[in-house]
């Protein structure tokens, strides 16, 4: 099976640690993952802000880059949902073949590789925020939680109001800053009631927004992408 990593432009540029963790994790599970250098962005920001033509161009580019692989792994629920939900409406002919081969990380691990215990070790108190596009776009269900429950040492605490949006929404965060901040304040309040050291999600964009508020408010709670926790072992977490 030829497996490619679609890192996403946000992870590539701002969160390379998530990409490295994804590579580490997949190699540990015996998957030789390729990184096609021609990849850029899925086009979500353009499409969701109202710049469809640019988005269609990026969708076609995605199909060109990843068309030759058997599976494409994306460590982002949001970009995964963009490809799977929006590409069929934006550019059905060009992307029809590649779309069914695109998996969000937890889907790839559970549905394709058939593992729920990835051999990780992470001795911390963690709460998980199911981001909207993971939850209602890709319907990841409890896949990420099943993976986290099998991490040795990890104390998983439920997040109250977990299914409510954090208020990121891409350009929504700057176009409607007051509502976005009010939504995030409630999310942060819920995170704080869990007493977790780490807030985990399958999307760094939402984490960047919640994390930006967590540090501004000097809460001490860290944000971590699911891949980073799953990649952790006794060696990295002595």
């Amino acid at each position, binding site marked *: 099976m030829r497996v490619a990593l679609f890192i996403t432009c946000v992870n590539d*540029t701002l969160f390379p640690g998530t990409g490295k963790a994804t590579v580490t994790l997949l190699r540990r599970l015996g998957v030789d993952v390729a990184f096609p250098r021609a990849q850029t962005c899925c086009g979500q920001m353009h499409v969701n802000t109202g710049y469809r033509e640019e988005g269609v161009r*990026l969708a076609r580019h995605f199909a060109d880059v990843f068309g030759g692989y058997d599976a494409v792994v994306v460590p982002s629920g949001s970009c995964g949902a963009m490809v799977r939900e929006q590409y069929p409406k934006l550019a059905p002919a060009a992307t029809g073949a590649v779309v069914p081969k695109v998996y969000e990380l937890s889907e790839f691990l559970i549905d394709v590789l058939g593992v729920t215990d990835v051999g990780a070790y992470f001795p911390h108190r963690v709460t998980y925020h199911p981001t909207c596009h993971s939850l209602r776009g890709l319907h990841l269900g409890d896949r990420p939680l099943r993976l986290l429950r099998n991490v040795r040492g990890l104390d998983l605490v439920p997040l109250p109001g977990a299914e409510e949006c954090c208020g990121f*929404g891409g350009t929504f965060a700057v176009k409607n800053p007051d509502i976005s901040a009010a939504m995030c304040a409630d999310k942060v309040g819920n995170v704080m009631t869990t007493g977790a050291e780490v807030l985990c999600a399958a999307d760094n964009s939402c984490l960047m927004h919640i994390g930006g508020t967590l540090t501004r408010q000097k809460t001490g709670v860290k944000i971590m992408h699911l891949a980073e926790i799953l990649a952790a072992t006794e060696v990295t977490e002595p």
Partner: protein
Amino acid sequence: MTRTFLGMPASALQRSFPSNAAKAVRDSQLRFNLRKATHTIRDKRASVVGELPDWEELRQAGKAIKDHTLRNLDRYLVQLEEAVTAAGGHVHWARDADEANRIVAGLVKATGETEVVKVKSMATQEIGLNEALAAEGVTAYETDLAELIVQLGDDWPSHILVPAIHRNRAEIREIFQERMGEWGRPAPEGLTDEPRALAEAARLHLRERFLSTKVAISGANFMIAETGTLVVLESEGNGRMCLTLPRTLISVVGIEKLLPSWRDLEVFLQLLPRSSTGERMNPYTSTWTGAAEGQEFHLVLLDNGRTHVLADEVGRQALRCIRCSACLNVCPVYERAGGHAYGSVYPGPIGAILTPQLRGLDSELDRSLPYASSLCGACYEVCPVAIDIPQVLVDLRAKARHPRAERLGMAAAGWIFNRPERLARAQRAGGRLRRFVPKRLPGPMSAWTDTRDIPDIPRESFRGWWDRTGGGDR
């Protein structure tokens, strides 16, 4: 297209959604009222919907029936007209709000009456009927409890189902005490804010009105083409007082409210109450066909922009809406912005897709409505007729005019994303300049850093690392 009127004062249309919402979000009483009310209905809905194992099938059936009807609207409307006429009713066609108001005012004046009672109706609010009637010397009395609160308080509705959702009990008591006397029977002495006492005050106030008024105006939840029957679902029974007691009944109904047959109604009588009030069945369902003996019935079929919406391939699904308001109750943006911020009688997610389609994207407010959503998808998930609200929002965003600075920014981002080498170069530049990024960003991006830190820019991008290490092998 001429500007379609949607029942809101001009002042609400002057500012964009973000600035309306910014004001609302600072009103802590409003936020408390809204949070409490929306969460209560939201939870009730979830529990009664959860009881039905075939909810998804019902939802798909509702969607299919509505789509079929909308595709054949011309045929079913004519069928309806024939059936209503055969049953002794009169059918009028109104292109827009003005025409509908003119028709209704003319019908009322022909009876010689100067007072009408009203059943809760979105269509008459949409066209601003009460104000139009007032200009003709006719007083319209709202009889739905929440509409009464809005009317007595000189207020605007902020929710489809619960128009006074922004008010709490203490505020309602105050409104009753101060204003009821001006409109009829005053509130009793020593009125408390107990729900029972408030309802009793409203009941006494309204009862006299029902018995003395000879003309009633309603909308309808559904119209059945096959038999010409109109259907109203309600909780209080005030509607059926209006529908039965007065001599003349005038119903103003949007042309999309059609269902082909009684069999189709079965699906919607399951979908609507559960989605709307979170009840298995609403307390009162009234149906009427034509006019009863000694009574007169007029049906005013309202377009007011609907055929324009029908012409749009993506946007037309908004016409499936049965005004249940489930999408409002789950919307995190509505919960914090309140209904008035949307500047239309249709607030919340459905308002964000319906208002700009009915009214056009000319004003700053209407252009900002498709952006009044984080695209979290909660609305689509609960919608009983499966309107893909996020899809319509994104489609409308593509049709809206964009600010110049944003256009330039998006063009620049597009230029970079079109070539991986450009992206790599931009990332390297970012890595070199990382220490010079200020804590507070200038311009539009200050909206981010007002409440949030920006993440540390990494020294090296992922692709930089991959190139340097061969994917970690070196």
